[in-house]
């Protein structure tokens, strides 16, 4: 009998201990929470309910009872209800005053939930503005700029040298030059300036371009960018054109044994970014394997996939999308 009761005691104590530990975990608190007003259990009974003042005075006593009647989980955990509740502060929202004030203002304007019918009406209004906007973004990466520069040198050398250097490319400019550049580039595109490291931040495009030109002078002039290779949709097999270009790359690399290149795999915007990263990776790997097969040492080749994150042209039509399914070749140190 004694043994039995001691077991009960131990178990009871352990439960109490667990309750304490659970409640002890909750120390950080931003919002304090307490139960208010005891429930009336019998509807018409005299005002059993304690007024606010009283509930406030003894907040500890109220929650247990109140909860026990109505909510299963909290009922079971009645003794620790109040403390754990206090701990349930949304932790991802630490009370950084600065952020919250700011966010609050925005939220009120933006958080309005719009039903689906209303949403549809947004489409036409903003669609008109779309190509231009996207273009601005696409035009910024230096990868578009260099060939354009080369083109200008050839055809309009006298015109707007300064403006060009500013890399201030308006959407119209890119639109007109980009397609032409495709035709010109492979043969006699921008020679010195084509090998801009494409990871270069936008703002520094101009400086980077000049800096990149210098190390390159060690190698015989070559238009690596113009040899970018295209792929079919959801495909990473090399076309005969792609093989031809890779053979040119390989022969140039054999003549310039110090040159190292990075192969950058890219995709159009169809599909999710994760699958496209994988697809871009495989496109880069296809080229890498082919170059290795042509005798280029693997130590001179690196790969990276940008998936759909670095389109050459905005993905607004099928023609542009097909051009975005590509491998770029970039000189590395």
């Amino acid at each position, binding site marked *: 009998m004694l*043994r039995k009761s001691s*077991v*009960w005691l131990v*178990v009871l104590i352990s439960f109490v201990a667990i309750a304490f530990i659970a409640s002890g975990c909750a120390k950080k608190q931003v*919002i*304090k*929470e*307490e*139960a*208010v*007003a005891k429930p*009336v259990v019998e*509807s018409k009974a005299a*005002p059993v*309910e304690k*007024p606010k003042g009283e509930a406030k005075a003894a907040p500890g006593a109220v929650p247990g009872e*109140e*909860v026990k009647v*109505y*909510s*299963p*989980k909290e*009922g079971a955990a009645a003794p620790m209800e109040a403390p754990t509740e206090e*701990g*349930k502060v*949304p*932790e*991802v929202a630490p009370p950084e005053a600065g952020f*919250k004030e700011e*966010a*609050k203002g*925005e*939220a009120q304007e*933006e*958080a*309005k*939930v719009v*039903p*689906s019918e209303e*949403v549809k009406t*947004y*489409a036409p209004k*903003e669609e008109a503005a779309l190509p231009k906007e996207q273009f601005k973004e696409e035009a910024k990466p230096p990868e578009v700029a260099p060939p354009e520069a080369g083109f200008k040198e050839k055809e309009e050398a006298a015109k707007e040298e300064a403006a060009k250097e500013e890399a201030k490319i308006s959407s119209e400019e890119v639109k007109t030059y980009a397609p032409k550049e495709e035709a010109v580039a492979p043969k006699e595109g921008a020679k010195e300036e084509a090998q801009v490291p494409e990871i270069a931040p*936008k703002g520094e495009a101009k400086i980077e371009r000049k800096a990149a030109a210098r190390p390159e002078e060690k190698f015989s002039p070559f238009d690596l960018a113009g040899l970018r290779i295209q792929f079919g949709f*959801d495909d990473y097999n090399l076309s005969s054109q792609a093989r031809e270009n890779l053979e040119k790359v390989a022969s140039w690399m054999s003549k310039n044994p110090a040159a190292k290149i990075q192969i950058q795999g890219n995709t159009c915007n*169809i*599909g*999710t*970014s*994760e*699958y496209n*990263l*994988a*697809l871009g*990776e*495989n496109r880069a*790997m296809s080229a890498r394997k082919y170059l290795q097969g042509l005798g280029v040492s693997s130590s001179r080749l690196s790969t*990276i*996939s940008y998936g759909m*994150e670095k389109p050459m042209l905005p993905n607004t039509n099928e023609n542009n999308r097909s051009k975005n399914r590509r491998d770029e070749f970039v000189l590395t140190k």
Partner: protein
Amino acid sequence: MKRGLFIFTSVFLLAILWGDLSWAKVYIDIRSPSFRKFPIALYPFKTSIASGGDVKVGEQATEILNNDLNFSGFFALLDPSIFMENTGQASPARSPSETEKGLNGGSAASIDFRRWANMGAEALVLGEATPKGRSLMLEARLYDVVKKELIVGKRYTGDITDLPYMVHRFADEIVFALTGENGIFQTKIAYVSKATGNKEIYLMDFDGRNGRQVTHHQSICLSPHFSPDGKKIAFTSYKGGNPDLYIKDLRTMEERRVSHYPGLNISPAWSPDGQRLALTLSKDGNPEIYTIRPDGSELLRLTNHPAIDVSPSWSPDGKKMAFVSNREGNPQIYTMDVNGQNVRRLTFDGTYNTHPAWSPRGDRIAFDALIDGNHNICTIQTDGSDFRILTANLNRCETPSWSPDGRHLVFSSNLDGEPHIFLMDAEGTRINRLTFKKVGDTYPNWSPRFKE
């Protein structure tokens, strides 16, 4: 001795269980097929200004609570115009003079429940906000109109900016008290935004409020994925010149690079117990699925196929994974055991199905399907049956992620050109837009309920 202990423990546990059941009164059986929306009246929260507080606080609280209750889909909210027309007569209290008392005292006896019942309400929410400079006290009560009694009442005190969180917490109380299920109003959504010109990870409340930037990599950040306790986010960033995997602690804002093998380190997915991360690496020549511990150790390879394997998503029991593979020619959804065995193809409709997300309830898998040139959100049973297309060719609807209760999906769509974040019910009903900035918001990931 041992046996006695065992018997005692089981009796004790049974008692708790039984007590649970006997105490619980579920007002709304949300799992029942004959479920009907529960009629509830939300009386506009009163603002009592002690000294120089914002008069609009009560209004804001009402708006947030109204939105929460509406969003849950459990409630039919009474049209406020019905009971606001004549405040004197239809106020919660019997007379205007008692209104004050009724709201302040929270006394069930002073509320004319019959009037609310006659208007069609079965439950009534009353509340009062007391702003005091920078601090705020919010009191809210939920009443059973038929039984004329208080169901739950809470008083919250905190900073004035905590108002939404106080309201969300009370909304969770309401849902829990009436349905027995935990609410999701305190959850967050992580997403990728180009607001700064670079893709960075952002965080917002589930209702689109309080958006804020989490990463400042000035590079490309992708694929945010919450840990099961909601405290951390795993994501991919090009910060180091390669797509590497990082984990950010949301409280300390500390960041760690946990995987930087050559090639891809992408598509993180936290196991339900938080012990492992599934991810895609291409270090062995092509994209394969691996798991690691969150500190980067104990690399295990799961798939071994010359095709692309990417985008793993764990089943809620942690025993299986859904993933994307193009091993049969084009991307399709597959499932496998977490040891890489028992690979099964799940999708046979269409030629481009990606981004699986296993429902927290375990019964369905949501994914992104290319149908007639449009990306649509679809779901399918985990055995491959009952394929459903949820979105009706609304341009590109991508990257679905489930709410922790499995009742809603968040996804990105570029209905108006730039992608934005949208919510919908898991059946495809009620699509709501969450983000409105001009820039593109993509890749939403819904947090779990936060655990302490």
